[in-house]
């Protein structure tokens, strides 16, 4: 099922731009709203092919959310294309009150998630969005790991009853999946079988979890890998199963340590199946400008950090 072969890495935002070209043709009430960043959100091609169904509302994200909500109320399927920082924070209350409260079918495509906008610096690195979005009633939160899984997940998001926040990467990520793989919102994807520990990763971090898996294997540690592409509703069944069968969990996210995947998984474990958990995330700090991978190293999110966290969590478990 899974290979990391010679296929060209692609950012999920670019894959998004390609996916909406196909979806635009098949879903005739699909509309796209931009906020003067259409070249970055890869919606230019859509705007040229479907000019009447593309609205560039200028640099005004709060209005952008409201107009999308109004279009949903008029029977359309709007996609709001923005950056994760602006979609989740500048326009948060609009998302909450105009979208989540009335449970409207709007998909928010939030590019530049996590540290992937590396050199743009802190203003453009969304490290709080997943946690923020997860606290909103009626909101569904997704972060696809690669350009292949993006497509079915986006397709489902558009058909989903209620708003969906979909975090996308600025930078290219390796292709992990095959076109034939199946995805379901709310259902984790198991990428590797293993019995010593489970690595639960989301979005751009899935690639590093896979790398860590290979390094661990060299040491004789078999790690189960779960791609938790849907943060909410969380696949708690998969989490509990992993806890029961492997006895130790490490969560891996390109996000602040508070409120995101680590928190969500900890909530499940604490209530239903307590096992030791390690957490790879930003240690409640902003990062800085720099190349994505260098930032991962400096801020504790690299493959080496994952391997270290696995050693720590296994030690914790076995001490018990």
């Amino acid at each position, binding site marked *: 099922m899974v290979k990391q072969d010679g296929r060209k890495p692609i950012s999920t935002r670019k894959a998004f731009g390609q996916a909406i070209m196909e979806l635009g043709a098949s879903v005739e009430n699909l509309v796209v709203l931009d906020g003067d960043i259409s070249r970055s959100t890869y919606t230019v091609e859509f705007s040229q092919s479907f000019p009447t*169904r593309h609205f560039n*509302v*200028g640099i*005004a994200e*709060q209005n952008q959310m409201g107009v999308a*909500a109004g279009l949903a109320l*008029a029977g359309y399927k709007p996609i709001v294309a923005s950056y994760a920082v602006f979609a989740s924070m500048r326009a948060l209350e609009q998302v909450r*009150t105009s979208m989540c*409260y009335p449970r409207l079918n709007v998909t928010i495509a939030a590019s530049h998630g996590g540290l992937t906008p590396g050199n743009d610096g802190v203003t453009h690195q969304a490290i709080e969005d997943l946690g923020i979005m997860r606290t909103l009633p009626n909101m569904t939160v997704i972060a696809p790991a690669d350009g292949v899984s993006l497509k079915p997940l986006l397709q489902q998001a558009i058909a989903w009853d209620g708003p969906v926040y979909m975090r996308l990467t600025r930078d290219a990520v390796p292709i992990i999946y095959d076109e034939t793989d199946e995805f379901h919102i709310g259902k984790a994807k198991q990428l590797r079988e293993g019995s010593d520990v489970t690595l639960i990763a989301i979005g751009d971090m899935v690639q590093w979890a896979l790398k860590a898996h290979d390094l661990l294997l060299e040491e004789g540690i078999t790690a189960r890998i779960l791609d938790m592409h849907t943060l909410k509703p969380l696949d708690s069944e998969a989490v509990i199963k992993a806890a029961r069968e492997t006895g130790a969990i490490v969560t891996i996210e390109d996000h602040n340590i508070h409120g995101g995947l680590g928190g969500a998984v900890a909530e499940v474990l604490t209530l239903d199946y307590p096992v030791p958990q390690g957490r790879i995330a930003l240690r409640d700090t902003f990062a800085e400008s720099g190349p994505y991978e260098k930032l991962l190293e400096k801020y504790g999110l690299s493959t080496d950090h994952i391997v270290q966290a696995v050693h720590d969590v296994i030690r914790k478990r076995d001490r018990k």
Partner: protein
Amino acid sequence: MTTTNKELVEGLRVQAQHVREAILRMVYAANSGHCGGSLSAADIVTALYFHIMRIDPQHPSWEDRDRFILSKGHACPVLYSALALRGYFPQEELGTLRAMDSRLQGHPDMRKTPGLDATTGSLGQGLSLGVGMALGAKLGGKAYRVYVLMGDGETNEGQIWEAAACAVKYRLDNLVAIVDKNGLQNDGPTDAIMPMGSLAEKWRAFGWDVVEIDGHDMAQIVGALDEAKERSHGKPTAIIAKTVKGKGVSYMENVVEWHSGAPTDMELDIALAEIWKGR
């Protein structure tokens, strides 16, 4: 004015007093709510629901209906009253305002109340919803019109002006924004809290057709709304309606403290007597 028009306007005037009575009774029953901004908007909302809008209370989600968005959602007593009197739900239900399990939430919830076209209450968001709906009408070739009622204090919000620019860009002549210019907001006079200068000039500068009216003169209200219907030249219409907060109840009129709060037994009696005096 023709005789029929006179009759129409007179009928709407009486209807507006019924709406006012219902507002006072429901806020009294709930022992909380917003009288001032509901009463200032009573004539406008009455004109919309009892004459201007193409709606069908039997089919609240009829696709081709005209839409109304109460962007100043705190004034929902005026909207609930109009909806009940228009037959969207039983009038007795007005007594459940703000109560547990009620369909009449403290601020409008479109998923709960029959006839509501939007969920509002956070000021500044309604015009964007209206822009989206009007855009949807254009896109789908539908003839429905969208009305958005805002407070003058509410226009402090930046999002209103984002939406104002957007409506002009998309030539939304099926969109009518009405500003209930009662001159007061929550903490005091709008000129003291945040002076906005001439609202008419601001909307005009953004590219809207602007009409200034007396928001309690039923003939002017109907005239301006009818006129807006006729227009189809690519510009949205802003109606700046000069109103009196608390209109119709002497002790509430222009008194900032009556922004919210319920009348006592005695105050209710006085208020109802004043509303119907001379009739």
